[in-house]
């Protein structure tokens, strides 16, 4: 990797002003687990790498009443997976972070990097869309929050502007009576990236009647795909086996999945149906996790 300048700012403000000056030829590097592979394969050739490694102010995980979980962008996926706060407030999210790559990757990769990379075959984005999480982005122009439902644009493409850094992930608390589930389905080695990821968030009344249902599939398209009809099909009803089957069928038939080495479009359609069913079953209580 010849002739690449490395900038190592020590604060977010310094990083933002460097980024604003350097412009398009700069790539941000945090854990480097994705970026270094892209460099080695010569998919990108930036003139400058802006390392966020010194921004210790972005390494925090806390919970705030009325806001939810706040995870600094530089927190490693491993730390998020093992955090007692994350495990307490969003056990499914902790488990999902634990499904990324392998432990060596998770020790280096960061929560902010994972979202900013926007790899279509990644686990956290799918669940975080279902949880209605938000990303906080900063630039010298100011700060804004982006709902993850609007954050992903296409393959490796987000709504982040070139001068913006993802500084924080905010995951709101689940509504009372809600349970979530995430399934990573791999079609090859157990360490493969998902062929299909499936997140379900289910909210029920004490009577058992469903008040809301969200289903999001990952790795089947350029960006996470939410089944828009899920809530309407489930609302006011008990999530019976036949209703689960009906929703799963509708979701699968509504998606036009991509084909890659992990499975053809036809295969992914079958798997979306199966995993949507299993995720709803897990969320509705058959599973040990909420």
């Amino acid at each position: 990797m010849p002739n690449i300048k490395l900038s190592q700012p020590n604060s977010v403000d310094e990083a933002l002003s460097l980024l604003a000056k350097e412009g398009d030829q700069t790539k941000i590097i945090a854990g480097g687990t994705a970026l270094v592979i892209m460099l080695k394969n010569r998919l990108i050739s930036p003139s400058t790498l802006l390392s966020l490694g010194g921004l210790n102010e972005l390494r925090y995980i806390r919970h705030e009443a009325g806001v939810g979980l706040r995870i600094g962008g530089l927190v490693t996926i491993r730390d998020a997976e093992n955090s007692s706060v994350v495990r307490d407030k969003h056990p499914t999210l902790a488990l999902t972070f634990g499904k990324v790559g392998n432990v060596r990757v998770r020790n280096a990769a960061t929560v902010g990097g994972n979202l900013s990379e926007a790899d279509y075959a990644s686990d956290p984005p799918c669940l975080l869309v279902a949880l209605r999480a938000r990303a906080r982005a900063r630039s010298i122009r100011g700060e804004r929050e982006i709902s993850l439902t609007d954050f992903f644009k296409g393959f490796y493409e987000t709504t982040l502007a070139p001068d913006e850094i993802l500084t924080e992930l905010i995951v709101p608390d689940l509504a009372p009576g809600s349970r979530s589930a995430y399934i990573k389905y791999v079609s090859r080695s157990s360490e493969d990236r998902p062929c299909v990821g499936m997140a379900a968030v289910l909210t029920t009344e004490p009577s058992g009647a469903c008040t809301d249902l969200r289903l999001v599939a990952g790795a089947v398209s350029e960006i996470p795909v939410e089944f828009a009809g899920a809530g309407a099909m489930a609302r006011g009803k008990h999530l019976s086996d036949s209703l689960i089957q009906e929703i799963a069928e509708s979701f699968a038939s509504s998606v036009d999945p991509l084909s890659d080495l992990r499975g053809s479009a036809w295969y992914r359609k079958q798997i979306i149906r199966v995993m949507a069913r299993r995720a709803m079953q897990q969320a509705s209580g058959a599973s040990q996790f909420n």
Partner: protein
Amino acid sequence: MATPTTSAASIKLNADGSLNVLTSSVEMGQGLKTALAQIAASEAELPVHRVRVSEPDTAFTPFDLMTAASRATFCMGTAIRRAVHQVKEQLLEAAAAQLEAAKEDLVLSDGKVMVRGVQSRSISYADIVRLTKTNNLLGHGIFVAGSGPDGSPVVMDFETGQGYGSAEWHPAVVACEVEVDTDTGRVKVTRLHGELYVGKVINPRLCQLQVEGAMLFALGQVLFEELSTDTNGGITNPNLSDYMLPSFEDVPPQLTVHLLEPHGVTDVHGIGETSLPPVRPAIANAICRAIGARILDLPITPEKVLRALEGQRKI
């Protein structure tokens, strides 16, 4: 084992009585340096910690065809034994003069030459090397595979690929149990057992581990490994993120190996790949027994299994 085949080794017995093996065979995690040191130590009647095996440097170390095809322990091991034999002859010649005994009455044991039955009349290898004033004793050994398992000449027709491909047979049997998720077609190998003829075992633990490695290698070929090419023949998955090998989670919960080593057997056998080929039909047969459909092209992906299951559901 590939044929024709040639391995050469040089041995240097040092002035301190330790032994160096010069070889071009490659240690790649299979434990070859350990096995070759054991062979040299055993032949030279030395403790194994007194033997050092070189790294390969083909500019200086003697010729070896390759470290592949389950051949290194057998072929290089034989060359080393022959090289050590030359050194032993020199030891016996020199010791016979020093101990005033006939060569036939001398025995080698634990780095010493002694008169048979007379413990007190002995001389260490180090003392012999010093007495010869050469400061080291050298030996060379070459192994060239000459005949096939039935004694007929090893002849391979490279045009047709016909003929003897090996100087020895490598018999193995593999049995397995699989679980198939009939919703997704995903296969989990739950039990895998290899039973193979190994001849004389040099190092039981390394032998066991190498056989396990061969079986996991084959498991990857059956279930995961697939080269993908574009229309120009370029490989589109030339990395371990896109080209899949098994991970630890894919290792069958029950993975067992039994080594068949007949009592009193002396011939050393290559075992690197013996248990590899039968893993493929064993897993394929188990999947066939589980789902009632036979899948003939590897790897047996979940998609192929699901398509086979769908085909049956339609009947």
